[in-house]
């Protein structure tokens, strides 16, 4: 693991989680990762690897069947896991924002874009209705929406998927948060739109100096945008490091398999090819050994 | 048996069974003659209140008749209506629903339209209107309920039959050469039965209330047969002098309606996933 140069924005230490539904099956196995100031950190793995559990743990929206079994989520010198509901609500929206996965479901169908973009600005930044409206307008310009007034007056169903994702990105960055969680923000979009959205996130992130935790199953996407990357398998970190270094010389067999499955990592792909069975067998053995060593999980 | 493990079903079903036993053996159970008037013992309060007299556990009404005995005998009319009216409504509605759902096209159009027309009017008004037309009495009450509520069964059975008719086993039966009626009754009906049982139970609760309302208005059985609705009407008149005359039959009606409802609800939940809401 590469040590961060300054104090990281987000410092996850030894985060473990289990599924209560599924015989206390481990979902996260002592995951540690840092997101530095102004850094874009990729979190990669196939579905079920635990990526979204990490994102949810940061945002305090862990589902009821999942329990955090140990570890810390350090943010601004505090452990987010120990914050009370109201203390966490104070942090969320102001310091931490989310760019969601599916722009078709993440906007309220019965409220105008205007209302949905300004409510956070008013509550979390204390802007007046008029100021919030002006701010929303300039935010939409910033995400290269040509006709902000029309978009603000629209309902979500009147906008295309790419347009909606721009709105959501504008809303997330508009709150001037210190950390943005981007949860597979391009998965639901066309390939052509994906590129624009990635460029947009990178540009906004650089301009505002925001730290981003970029969750994706797609190493190709991560390669385009992330400074560093963490690879997860079955809730365990299998590889972590600078993106260029990991892609050039993957140390772990699983990362190699991911790369082999998606050879053109300069171009986003829509899904993962199946990982070779011998790699899976080796991984499971490795995880079993890890569980036995850490002595905190009982599962095969 | 999941049914037995549902406490709702056990308690509600137990109460209905108890009520059936009470209705059948009413003459043996009732402490007094439900019709015996005695103005010397008029409006006596239930046992435990001042001026109560032994022998009249729930007090007496304005004519000195024993309230408990009248509630016990009143269960006979309520349960008769519940079983006969709901049963007939179920039978007629199901047959029409099966026909509409299985034959489709013309029969379906006619029957569905009929259901729509029927459901456009408020049941209480329709039942009172019907009784006014066909005259009062137990038969009329039953006819009124059947005529109004067959639609509930028809709609559900029609939908269910339509979905069942598209299943593979029906096609298979047709391929083997079974006739349409044979398929209808042997193959489709058994699959619709669980839904029907639940619906029938709910309908019984409705029938009990409708009978009580018609008795209350004075359009049900003649006034010398004790009914809960009739008792409620009397009790409403003398509520200041003897609240128990209203309270006793109302409590019986309430318990019965809730029991049928909870039983139907529980049955729907355990018998059929489609009805789960």
């Amino acid at each position: 693991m590469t040590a961060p140069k300054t104090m990281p924005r987000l410092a996850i230490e030894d985060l473990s989680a289990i599924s209560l539904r599924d015989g206390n099956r481990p979902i996260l196995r002592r995951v540690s990762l840092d997101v530095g100031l102004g850094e874009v950190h990729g979190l990669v793995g196939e579905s079920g690897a635990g990526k979204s559990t990490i994102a949810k743990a940061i945002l305090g929206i862990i589902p009821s069947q999942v329990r955090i079994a140990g570890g810390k989520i350090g943010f601004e010198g505090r452990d987010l896991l120990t914050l009370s509901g109201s203390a966490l609500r104070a942090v969320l929206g102001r310091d931490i924002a989310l760019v969601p996965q599916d722009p078709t479901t993440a906007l309220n169908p019965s409220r105008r874009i205007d209302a949905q973009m300004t409510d956070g600005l008013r509550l979390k930044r204390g802007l007046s209705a008029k100021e919030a409206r002006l701010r929303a307008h300039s935010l939409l310009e910033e995400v290269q929406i040509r006709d902000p007034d029309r978009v603000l007056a629209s309902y979500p169903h009147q906008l295309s998927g790419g347009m909606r994702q721009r709105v959501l990105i504008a809303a997330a960055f508009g709150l001037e948060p210190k950390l943005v969680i981007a949860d597979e923000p391009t998965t639901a979009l066309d390939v052509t739109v994906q590129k624009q959205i990635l460029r947009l996130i990178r540009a906004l992130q650089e301009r505002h100096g925001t730290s981003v935790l970029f969750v994706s199953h797609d190493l190709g996407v991560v390669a385009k945008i992330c400074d560093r990357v963490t690879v997860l398998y079955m809730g365990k970190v299998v590889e972590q490091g600078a993106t260029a270094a990991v892609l050039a010389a993957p140390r772990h067999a699983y990362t190699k398999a991911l790369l082999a499955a998606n050879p053109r990592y300069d171009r986003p792909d829509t899904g993962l090819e199946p990982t070779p069975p011998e790699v899976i067998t080796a991984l499971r053995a490795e995880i079993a050994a890890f569980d036995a060593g850490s002595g905190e999980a009982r599962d095969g | 048996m999941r049914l037995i493990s549902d406490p709702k079903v056990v308690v509600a079903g137990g109460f209905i069974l108890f009520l059936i036993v009470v209705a059948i053996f009413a003459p043996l159970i009732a402490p007094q003659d439900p019709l015996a008037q005695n103005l010397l013992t008029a409006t006596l309060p239930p046992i435990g209140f001042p001026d109560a007299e032994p022998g009249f556990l729930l007090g007496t009404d304005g004519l000195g008749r024993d309230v408990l005995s009248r509630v016990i005998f009143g269960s006979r009319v309520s349960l008769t209506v519940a079983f006969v009216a709901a049963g007939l409504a179920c039978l007629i509605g199901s047959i029409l629903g099966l026909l509409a759902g299985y034959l489709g096209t013309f029969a379906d159009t006619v029957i569905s339209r009929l259901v729509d027309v029927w459901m456009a009017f408020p049941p209480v008004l329709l039942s009172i209107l019907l009784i006014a037309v066909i005259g009062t009495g137990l038969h009329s009450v039953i006819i009124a309920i059947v005529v109004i509520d067959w639609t509930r069964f028809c709609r559900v059975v029609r939908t269910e039959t339509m979905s069942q008719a598209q299943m593979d086993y029906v096609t298979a039966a047709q391929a083997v050469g079974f006739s349409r009626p044979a398929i209808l009754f042997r193959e489709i009906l058994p699959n619709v039965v669980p839904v029907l049982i639940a619906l029938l139970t709910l309908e019984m609760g409705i029938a009990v209330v409708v009978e009580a309302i018609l008795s209350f208005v004075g359009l049900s059985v003649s006034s010398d047969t004790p009914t809960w609705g009739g008792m409620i009407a009397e009790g409403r008149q003398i509520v200041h002098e003897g609240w128990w005359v209203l309270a006793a039959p109302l409590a019986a009606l309430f318990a019965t309606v809730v029991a049928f409802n909870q039983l139907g609800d529980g049955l729907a939940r355990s018998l059929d996933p489609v009805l789960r809401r």
Partner: protein
Amino acid sequence: MLLAVIANRAAMALVTLAGVAVVVFILLRVVPGDPVAMMISPGASAADIAALKAHYGLDAPLLVQFGIWTKGIVEGDFGTSITLHRHVTSVLADRLPATIELAVMALFVAVTLGGGIAIVGTLLRRTPGEAVIDGLNSVMLAVPDFIWALALVLLFAVALPVLPLTGQIDPALAEGFSTRFYLTESVLTGRFAVAGNILSHMIMPTLALALPLAAVIVRLLKQSLKEAMLQDYVLLARIKGFGELRLVLQEALRNAIGPTLALTGVQFTFLIGGTVIVERIFAYPGIGNLAIDAIINRDFPLIQGLVLLFGLIFILINIGIDLTVAALKPRLRHA
């Protein structure tokens, strides 16, 4: 487009209504028991009876009677009530306002109460509080207006004798009104003591009508709200740091309310039907109470007028529901 659909549905309903009117007209006349026999004194001669029948037009052939009746309706004349000796239209006009005030009040109470409990239940989801609400509501769902009305009579006649048991207003106060909308008029003219008196008469019938509807609203709205609360946009709003109550009211409610509105409309027609028996129990002078008297007395013209009136009310309610649901759905409005 949408208006065309609604207009089409209304037209269908009118056809249905006409059909029902015809059926009721014929049924009333082919079955035994004629109204004249009920009004004459025992010693009347056959000639007297015939004269009386002729007076009410009941001696003509069925088709002729029907022709006269339809012609009258087209001209706004629904005939003369046999028992009240007044024009059916004026009888209905006298009685309808009381029922409208009662039904609207009950609807308001049901929506407020049901909506409020549904929202509280949603806030309490996955807690013992929700289980308590669900348990009570499952019993409430089984209890019809008839039982509520009488339970309220017991409560307020015996245990807590503070409310008047019958009527719409103290007869002494029922003066100086220029319309029959007593409650509305007394509020608008600032006669609040009179309004209070009317309200005290309306509490019990209103509750009896409202509680069953409230129970239905609680069940459906709470379920829809809970589903809506799982949507991504609510999650995103939660991540903006909004509190639970704001999430329910601002994000979930508008998206969840559609099915409840549609159902409330349907149930409102049941509520109107319920006014028949509830008005009877509280001797409230509306059209429901009137309907029972008309039917018991076989007052043909009045029954026919009432059937048409009830049918018309239902059609109007259904159009109202369609319009409301459409207005709340931006997707439909902009389609």
